[in-house]
Protein backbone atom coordinates (compact mmCIF):
# COMPACT_ATOMS: atom_id res chain seq x y z
CA UNK A 1 0.00 0.00 0.00
CA UNK A 2 1.46 3.33 -1.08
CA UNK A 3 0.11 5.39 1.79
CA UNK A 4 1.37 8.72 0.49
CA UNK A 5 -0.28 8.27 -2.91
CA UNK A 6 -3.54 7.19 -1.30
CA UNK A 7 -3.52 10.23 0.98
CA UNK A 8 -2.93 12.54 -1.99
CA UNK A 9 -5.77 10.91 -3.93
CA UNK A 10 -8.04 11.19 -0.90
CA UNK A 11 -7.13 14.87 -0.60
CA UNK A 12 -8.41 15.28 -4.16
CA UNK A 13 -11.74 13.80 -3.04
CA UNK A 14 -11.11 10.19 -4.08
CA UNK A 15 -13.25 8.23 -1.63
CA UNK A 16 -12.02 4.83 -2.83
CA UNK A 17 -8.45 5.82 -1.97
CA UNK A 18 -9.57 6.96 1.46
CA UNK A 19 -11.48 3.73 2.01
CA UNK A 20 -8.29 1.77 1.34
CA UNK A 21 -6.72 3.73 4.20
CA UNK A 22 -9.80 3.06 6.34
CA UNK A 23 -9.46 -0.70 5.83
CA UNK A 24 -5.79 -0.50 6.79
CA UNK A 25 -6.31 1.55 9.96
CA UNK A 26 -9.78 0.56 11.13
CA UNK A 27 -8.61 -2.00 13.70
CA UNK A 28 -6.16 0.46 15.28
CA UNK A 29 -8.75 3.21 15.34
CA UNK A 30 -11.44 0.94 16.78
CA UNK A 31 -9.08 -0.42 19.46
CA UNK A 32 -7.96 3.05 20.50
CA UNK A 33 -11.60 4.13 20.81
CA UNK A 34 -12.49 0.93 22.66
CA UNK A 35 -9.77 1.41 25.28
CA UNK A 36 -10.61 5.06 25.77
CA UNK A 37 -14.38 4.58 25.97
CA UNK A 38 -14.52 1.04 27.38
CA UNK A 39 -17.66 0.25 25.39
CA UNK A 40 -17.77 -1.52 22.03
CA UNK A 41 -20.85 0.17 20.60
CA UNK A 42 -19.65 3.59 21.53
CA UNK A 43 -16.18 2.76 20.23
CA UNK A 44 -17.66 1.69 16.87
CA UNK A 45 -19.67 4.91 16.67
CA UNK A 46 -16.63 6.99 17.56
CA UNK A 47 -14.48 5.15 15.00
CA UNK A 48 -17.05 5.77 12.27
CA UNK A 49 -17.34 9.43 13.20
CA UNK A 50 -13.57 9.71 13.28
CA UNK A 51 -13.23 8.40 9.72
CA UNK A 52 -15.98 10.69 8.44
CA UNK A 53 -14.33 13.64 10.13
CA UNK A 54 -10.91 12.55 8.83
CA UNK A 55 -12.14 12.43 5.24
CA UNK A 56 -13.73 15.85 5.51
CA UNK A 57 -10.60 17.41 6.93
CA UNK A 58 -7.95 15.41 5.10
CA UNK A 59 -6.97 18.50 3.12
CA UNK A 60 -5.52 19.84 6.38
CA UNK A 61 -3.10 16.90 6.66
CA UNK A 62 0.33 18.34 5.93
CA UNK A 63 2.50 15.28 6.17
CA UNK A 64 4.13 13.50 9.09
CA UNK A 65 2.61 10.45 10.72
CA UNK A 66 -0.81 9.72 9.22
CA UNK A 67 -1.56 7.37 12.09
CA UNK A 68 -0.90 10.16 14.61
CA UNK A 69 -3.15 12.47 12.62
CA UNK A 70 -5.88 9.82 12.52
CA UNK A 71 -5.50 9.23 16.26
CA UNK A 72 -6.18 12.90 16.86
CA UNK A 73 -9.54 12.60 15.10
CA UNK A 74 -10.30 9.45 17.10
CA UNK A 75 -9.48 11.20 20.35
CA UNK A 76 -11.77 14.09 19.42
CA UNK A 77 -14.54 11.66 18.45
CA UNK A 78 -14.12 9.88 21.80
CA UNK A 79 -14.35 13.17 23.69
CA UNK A 80 -17.56 13.96 21.76
CA UNK A 81 -18.90 10.51 22.58
CA UNK A 82 -18.11 10.95 26.27
CA UNK A 83 -19.84 14.32 26.30
CA UNK A 84 -22.87 12.73 24.61
CA UNK A 85 -22.80 9.89 27.12
CA UNK A 86 -22.79 12.40 29.98
CA UNK A 87 -25.82 14.15 28.52
CA UNK A 88 -27.71 10.93 27.74
CA UNK A 89 -26.62 8.08 30.01
CA UNK A 90 -27.53 4.72 28.51
CA UNK A 91 -28.29 1.34 30.02
CA UNK A 92 -25.98 -1.39 28.72
CA UNK A 93 -27.62 -4.29 26.91
CA UNK A 94 -25.02 -6.80 28.14
CA UNK A 95 -25.96 -8.87 31.18
CA UNK A 96 -24.18 -7.81 34.33
CA UNK A 97 -22.32 -9.98 36.75
CA UNK A 98 -24.72 -9.38 39.58
CA UNK A 99 -22.47 -7.00 41.45
CA UNK A 100 -23.20 -4.16 39.09
CA UNK A 101 -20.31 -4.80 36.69
CA UNK A 102 -20.87 -5.61 33.07
CA UNK A 103 -19.72 -8.88 31.57
CA UNK A 104 -17.64 -7.83 28.62
CA UNK A 105 -16.85 -11.07 26.91
CA UNK A 106 -19.33 -11.48 24.09
CA UNK A 107 -18.85 -14.69 22.17
CA UNK A 108 -17.71 -13.02 18.95
CA UNK A 109 -14.68 -11.65 20.78
CA UNK A 110 -13.40 -15.03 21.91
CA UNK A 111 -10.00 -16.12 20.66
CA UNK A 112 -10.48 -19.56 19.07
CA UNK A 113 -6.84 -20.51 19.81
CA UNK A 114 -7.51 -20.53 23.57
CA UNK A 115 -9.19 -23.22 25.65
CA UNK A 116 -12.33 -22.12 27.53
CA UNK A 117 -10.32 -21.83 30.77
CA UNK A 118 -7.61 -19.80 29.11
CA UNK A 119 -10.22 -17.65 27.42
CA UNK A 120 -11.91 -17.00 30.74
CA UNK A 121 -8.60 -16.10 32.32
CA UNK A 122 -7.70 -13.81 29.44
CA UNK A 123 -11.11 -12.16 29.66
CA UNK A 124 -10.65 -11.57 33.36
CA UNK A 125 -7.21 -10.03 32.88
CA UNK A 126 -8.54 -7.85 30.09
CA UNK A 127 -11.48 -6.87 32.24
CA UNK A 128 -9.14 -5.92 35.09
CA UNK A 129 -6.94 -3.81 32.82
CA UNK A 130 -9.93 -2.10 31.21
CA UNK A 131 -11.36 -1.42 34.66
CA UNK A 132 -8.09 0.25 35.70
CA UNK A 133 -7.97 2.21 32.44
CA UNK A 134 -11.51 3.41 32.97
CA UNK A 135 -10.52 4.78 36.38
CA UNK A 136 -7.86 7.01 34.84
CA UNK A 137 -8.61 10.64 34.02
CA UNK A 138 -9.32 10.96 30.30
CA UNK A 139 -6.11 12.90 29.53
CA UNK A 140 -3.98 10.18 31.18
CA UNK A 141 -5.96 7.42 29.55
CA UNK A 142 -5.51 8.92 26.09
CA UNK A 143 -1.75 9.10 26.48
CA UNK A 144 -1.41 5.58 27.82
CA UNK A 145 -3.62 4.17 25.05
CA UNK A 146 -1.55 5.91 22.37
CA UNK A 147 1.83 5.03 23.81
CA UNK A 148 1.39 1.61 25.38
CA UNK A 149 -1.49 0.08 23.43
CA UNK A 150 -1.01 1.70 20.02
CA UNK A 151 2.79 1.61 20.36
CA UNK A 152 3.28 5.20 19.24
CA UNK A 153 6.43 7.09 20.22
CA UNK A 154 6.34 10.25 22.32
CA UNK A 155 6.59 12.57 19.33
CA UNK A 156 3.64 10.90 17.62
CA UNK A 157 1.57 11.03 20.79
CA UNK A 158 2.43 14.70 21.27
CA UNK A 159 1.39 15.37 17.68
CA UNK A 160 -1.80 13.34 18.04
CA UNK A 161 -3.11 15.08 21.12
CA UNK A 162 -1.35 18.41 20.59
CA UNK A 163 0.39 18.76 23.90
CA UNK A 164 4.10 19.36 24.59
CA UNK A 165 6.48 16.42 24.79
CA UNK A 166 7.19 17.11 28.47
CA UNK A 167 3.49 16.82 29.28
CA UNK A 168 3.34 13.49 27.47
CA UNK A 169 6.26 12.16 29.54
CA UNK A 170 4.71 13.36 32.77
CA UNK A 171 1.19 12.06 32.00
CA UNK A 172 2.48 8.70 30.84
CA UNK A 173 4.60 8.18 33.97
CA UNK A 174 1.74 9.09 36.27
CA UNK A 175 -0.74 7.01 34.30
CA UNK A 176 1.53 3.96 34.54
CA UNK A 177 1.96 4.50 38.25
CA UNK A 178 -1.81 4.70 38.79
CA UNK A 179 -2.33 1.61 36.66
CA UNK A 180 0.26 -0.26 38.68
CA UNK A 181 -1.51 0.66 41.89
CA UNK A 182 -4.89 -0.32 40.47
CA UNK A 183 -3.65 -3.61 39.01
CA UNK A 184 -2.20 -4.62 42.38
CA UNK A 185 -5.81 -5.10 43.41
CA UNK A 186 -6.11 -7.82 40.74
CA UNK A 187 -2.83 -9.56 41.56
CA UNK A 188 -4.37 -13.03 41.75
CA UNK A 189 -5.68 -12.68 38.19
CA UNK A 190 -2.38 -11.71 36.64
CA UNK A 191 0.05 -14.23 35.18
CA UNK A 192 3.04 -14.82 37.47
CA UNK A 193 5.51 -13.00 35.23
CA UNK A 194 3.27 -9.91 35.20
CA UNK A 195 2.69 -9.74 38.94
CA UNK A 196 3.55 -6.42 40.42
CA UNK A 197 5.71 -5.95 43.46
CA UNK A 198 3.97 -4.61 46.49
CA UNK A 199 5.16 -2.41 49.26
CA UNK A 200 6.74 0.29 47.14
CA UNK A 201 4.76 3.45 47.43
CA UNK A 202 5.31 6.42 45.22
CA UNK A 203 5.22 9.77 46.87
Amino acid at each position, binding site marked *: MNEQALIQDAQR*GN*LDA*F*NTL*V*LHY*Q*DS*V*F*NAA*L*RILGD*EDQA*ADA*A*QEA*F*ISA*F*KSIASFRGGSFKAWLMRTVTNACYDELRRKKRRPTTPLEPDTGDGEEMDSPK*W*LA*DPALTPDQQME*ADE*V*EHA*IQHCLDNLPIEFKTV*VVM*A*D*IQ*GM*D*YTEVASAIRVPLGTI*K*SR*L*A*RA*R*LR*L*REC*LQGFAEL*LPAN*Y*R*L*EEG*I*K*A*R
Partner: protein
Amino acid sequence: MNRRDLELLSAYLDGELKPADSARLEARLNTDPELAAVLNDLRAARALLRKLPTRKAPRNFTLTRKMVGQNPPLPRAYPAFRLATLVATLLFFFSFGVNFVGTQMASSGQFGMGGGGAEAYSVQEAAPQLAAPTEEPPLSLALAQPTEDALRAMDTPSAKNGGEETAPAEDQPPAVVEPLSQPQSRAPLVPSVWQIGLAAAAMVSAVLMGLMRQLAARRWK
Protein backbone atom coordinates in the same frame (compact mmCIF):
# COMPACT_ATOMS: atom_id res chain seq x y z
CA MET B 1 9.82 8.19 44.86
CA ASN B 2 9.39 11.70 43.56
CA ARG B 3 7.70 12.72 40.34
CA ARG B 4 10.97 13.58 38.61
CA ASP B 5 12.37 10.08 39.24
CA LEU B 6 9.09 8.54 38.13
CA GLU B 7 9.20 10.42 34.82
CA LEU B 8 12.85 9.45 34.35
CA LEU B 9 12.06 5.78 34.92
CA SER B 10 9.09 5.86 32.58
CA ALA B 11 11.06 7.58 29.80
CA TYR B 12 14.00 5.21 30.38
CA LEU B 13 11.65 2.29 29.89
CA ASP B 14 10.65 3.67 26.51
CA GLY B 15 14.22 4.49 25.49
CA GLU B 16 13.35 8.18 25.40
CA LEU B 17 16.20 9.39 27.62
CA LYS B 18 19.38 11.00 26.32
CA PRO B 19 22.39 8.66 26.60
CA ALA B 20 23.94 10.73 29.40
CA ASP B 21 20.70 10.77 31.45
CA SER B 22 20.26 7.09 30.77
CA ALA B 23 23.75 6.26 32.06
CA ARG B 24 23.20 8.30 35.22
CA LEU B 25 19.90 6.55 35.91
CA GLU B 26 21.42 3.12 35.34
CA ALA B 27 24.11 3.92 37.90
CA ARG B 28 21.41 4.87 40.43
CA LEU B 29 19.38 1.74 39.63
CA ASN B 30 22.38 -0.42 40.52
CA THR B 31 22.56 1.09 43.98
CA ASP B 32 18.91 1.87 44.73
CA PRO B 33 16.67 -1.25 45.00
CA GLU B 34 13.56 0.85 45.54
CA LEU B 35 14.14 2.63 42.25
CA ALA B 36 14.76 -0.69 40.52
CA ALA B 37 11.55 -2.15 41.99
CA VAL B 38 9.48 0.78 40.67
CA LEU B 39 11.08 0.34 37.29
CA ASN B 40 10.07 -3.31 37.31
CA ASP B 41 6.52 -2.39 38.26
CA LEU B 42 6.28 0.14 35.50
CA ARG B 43 7.68 -2.41 33.07
CA ALA B 44 5.13 -4.99 34.21
CA ALA B 45 2.25 -2.50 33.92
CA ARG B 46 3.39 -1.57 30.42
CA ALA B 47 3.73 -5.22 29.45
CA LEU B 48 0.18 -5.89 30.64
CA LEU B 49 -1.15 -3.04 28.55
CA ARG B 50 0.76 -4.31 25.53
CA LYS B 51 -0.66 -7.74 26.17
CA LEU B 52 -4.20 -6.49 25.71
CA PRO B 53 -5.60 -8.30 22.69
CA THR B 54 -6.17 -6.26 19.56
CA ARG B 55 -9.83 -6.52 18.77
CA LYS B 56 -10.97 -6.78 15.23
CA ALA B 57 -13.25 -3.98 14.16
CA PRO B 58 -16.84 -5.26 14.48
CA ARG B 59 -17.62 -3.99 10.98
CA ASN B 60 -15.97 -2.17 8.12
CA PHE B 61 -15.84 1.57 8.64
CA THR B 62 -15.49 2.36 4.95
CA LEU B 63 -17.39 5.46 3.96
CA THR B 64 -20.16 5.85 1.44
CA ARG B 65 -20.60 8.95 -0.69
CA LYS B 66 -23.79 9.71 1.19
CA MET B 67 -21.94 9.66 4.52
CA VAL B 68 -19.54 12.34 3.37
CA GLY B 69 -22.14 14.35 1.47
CA GLN B 70 -20.62 13.76 -1.96
CA ASN B 71 -23.03 14.26 -4.85
CA PRO B 72 -22.66 12.72 -8.31
CA PRO B 73 -21.31 15.05 -11.02
CA LEU B 74 -24.24 16.53 -12.92
CA PRO B 75 -24.32 17.31 -16.68
CA ARG B 76 -23.21 20.75 -17.79
CA ALA B 77 -26.71 21.60 -18.95
CA TYR B 78 -28.11 21.05 -15.47
CA PRO B 79 -27.69 24.64 -14.22
CA ALA B 80 -29.49 25.94 -17.35
CA PHE B 81 -32.47 23.73 -16.57
CA ARG B 82 -32.42 24.80 -12.98
CA LEU B 83 -32.47 28.44 -14.03
CA ALA B 84 -35.27 27.77 -16.54
CA THR B 85 -37.36 26.06 -13.85
CA LEU B 86 -36.79 28.91 -11.45
CA VAL B 87 -37.61 31.64 -13.98
CA ALA B 88 -40.71 29.84 -15.30
CA THR B 89 -41.99 29.26 -11.77
CA LEU B 90 -41.41 32.86 -10.75
CA LEU B 91 -43.09 34.19 -13.88
CA PHE B 92 -45.99 31.83 -13.37
CA PHE B 93 -46.70 33.18 -9.91
CA PHE B 94 -45.92 36.72 -11.00
CA SER B 95 -48.59 36.47 -13.71
CA PHE B 96 -51.22 35.80 -11.08
CA GLY B 97 -50.04 38.85 -9.18
CA VAL B 98 -50.22 41.00 -12.31
CA ASN B 99 -53.70 39.81 -13.10
CA PHE B 100 -54.86 40.38 -9.56
CA VAL B 101 -53.46 43.92 -9.43
CA GLY B 102 -54.92 44.67 -12.86
CA THR B 103 -58.36 43.51 -11.75
CA GLN B 104 -58.19 45.51 -8.53
CA MET B 105 -57.15 48.69 -10.32
CA ALA B 106 -59.82 48.26 -12.93
CA SER B 107 -62.58 47.63 -10.42
CA SER B 108 -61.63 50.62 -8.27
CA GLY B 109 -61.41 52.78 -11.35
CA GLN B 110 -58.01 54.11 -10.37
CA PHE B 111 -56.43 54.71 -13.71
CA GLY B 112 -53.44 56.85 -13.12
CA MET B 113 -50.93 58.13 -15.56
CA GLY B 114 -49.64 54.69 -16.19
CA GLY B 115 -53.07 53.21 -16.72
CA GLY B 116 -53.36 54.31 -20.32
CA GLY B 117 -52.84 50.83 -21.61
CA ALA B 118 -55.49 49.37 -19.37
CA GLU B 119 -57.87 52.12 -20.27
CA ALA B 120 -57.31 51.62 -23.96
CA TYR B 121 -57.74 47.93 -23.42
CA SER B 122 -60.97 48.54 -21.52
CA VAL B 123 -62.32 50.67 -24.27
CA GLN B 124 -61.44 48.03 -26.84
CA GLU B 125 -63.05 45.39 -24.73
CA ALA B 126 -66.08 47.49 -24.18
CA ALA B 127 -66.68 48.11 -27.87
CA PRO B 128 -68.45 44.84 -28.65
CA GLN B 129 -70.57 45.20 -25.53
CA LEU B 130 -71.58 48.64 -26.58
CA ALA B 131 -72.39 47.42 -30.00
CA ALA B 132 -74.64 44.78 -28.60
CA PRO B 133 -77.52 47.00 -27.59
CA THR B 134 -77.48 48.81 -30.88
CA GLU B 135 -77.74 45.56 -32.73
CA GLU B 136 -80.72 44.54 -30.72
CA PRO B 137 -84.16 45.40 -31.94
CA PRO B 138 -84.88 49.11 -31.45
CA LEU B 139 -85.67 49.70 -27.83
CA SER B 140 -88.51 51.96 -28.69
CA LEU B 141 -90.08 49.03 -30.50
CA ALA B 142 -89.26 46.76 -27.61
CA LEU B 143 -90.85 49.14 -25.18
CA ALA B 144 -93.81 49.58 -27.40
CA GLN B 145 -94.25 45.85 -27.73
CA PRO B 146 -92.92 44.33 -24.53
CA THR B 147 -92.59 40.76 -25.59
CA GLU B 148 -91.09 38.13 -23.31
CA ASP B 149 -87.88 38.06 -25.38
CA ALA B 150 -87.39 41.75 -25.03
CA LEU B 151 -87.91 41.60 -21.28
CA ARG B 152 -85.39 38.77 -20.97
CA ALA B 153 -82.90 40.75 -23.01
CA MET B 154 -83.32 43.70 -20.71
CA ASP B 155 -82.41 41.54 -17.70
CA THR B 156 -78.88 41.02 -18.96
CA PRO B 157 -76.32 43.51 -17.58
CA SER B 158 -75.37 44.77 -21.01
CA ALA B 159 -78.92 45.29 -21.85
CA LYS B 160 -79.49 47.06 -18.57
CA ASN B 161 -76.63 49.43 -19.11
CA GLY B 162 -77.45 49.86 -22.71
CA GLY B 163 -81.00 50.47 -21.78
CA GLU B 164 -80.21 53.10 -19.20
CA GLU B 165 -77.67 54.94 -21.28
CA THR B 166 -78.82 54.53 -24.80
CA ALA B 167 -82.56 54.56 -24.51
CA PRO B 168 -82.98 58.30 -23.90
CA ALA B 169 -80.70 59.30 -26.80
CA GLU B 170 -79.92 56.70 -29.39
CA ASP B 171 -77.72 58.98 -31.45
CA GLN B 172 -75.29 59.51 -28.55
CA PRO B 173 -71.85 58.00 -29.36
CA PRO B 174 -71.18 54.71 -27.63
CA ALA B 175 -67.95 55.99 -26.04
CA VAL B 176 -69.99 57.99 -23.54
CA VAL B 177 -71.15 54.76 -22.00
CA GLU B 178 -69.02 53.61 -19.04
CA PRO B 179 -68.00 50.08 -19.82
CA LEU B 180 -65.14 50.28 -17.29
CA SER B 181 -67.58 49.78 -14.50
CA GLN B 182 -67.89 46.15 -15.63
CA PRO B 183 -64.69 44.35 -14.33
CA GLN B 184 -66.28 40.96 -14.54
CA SER B 185 -66.38 41.06 -18.29
CA ARG B 186 -62.67 42.03 -18.72
CA ALA B 187 -60.03 39.47 -19.80
CA PRO B 188 -56.89 39.12 -17.56
CA LEU B 189 -53.74 41.05 -18.43
CA VAL B 190 -51.71 37.82 -18.74
CA PRO B 191 -53.72 35.38 -20.80
CA SER B 192 -54.35 31.94 -19.37
CA VAL B 193 -52.51 30.37 -22.30
CA TRP B 194 -49.34 32.04 -21.16
CA GLN B 195 -49.83 30.88 -17.61
CA ILE B 196 -50.40 27.32 -18.77
CA GLY B 197 -47.28 27.59 -20.93
CA LEU B 198 -45.19 28.82 -18.01
CA ALA B 199 -46.45 26.08 -15.72
CA ALA B 200 -45.76 23.46 -18.38
CA ALA B 201 -42.25 24.82 -18.96
CA ALA B 202 -41.49 24.76 -15.24
CA MET B 203 -42.78 21.21 -14.86
CA VAL B 204 -40.98 19.85 -17.93
CA SER B 205 -37.74 21.48 -16.84
CA ALA B 206 -38.10 20.11 -13.29
CA VAL B 207 -38.80 16.60 -14.60
CA LEU B 208 -35.73 16.80 -16.84
CA MET B 209 -33.64 17.90 -13.85
CA GLY B 210 -34.87 14.90 -11.88
CA LEU B 211 -34.04 12.57 -14.73
CA MET B 212 -30.55 14.06 -15.02
CA ARG B 213 -29.97 13.57 -11.30
CA GLN B 214 -31.16 9.97 -11.43
CA LEU B 215 -29.02 9.18 -14.44
CA ALA B 216 -25.98 10.80 -12.82
CA ALA B 217 -26.56 8.86 -9.58
CA ARG B 218 -26.86 5.59 -11.52
CA ARG B 219 -23.61 6.23 -13.36
CA TRP B 220 -21.91 7.31 -10.10
CA LYS B 221 -22.64 3.93 -8.52
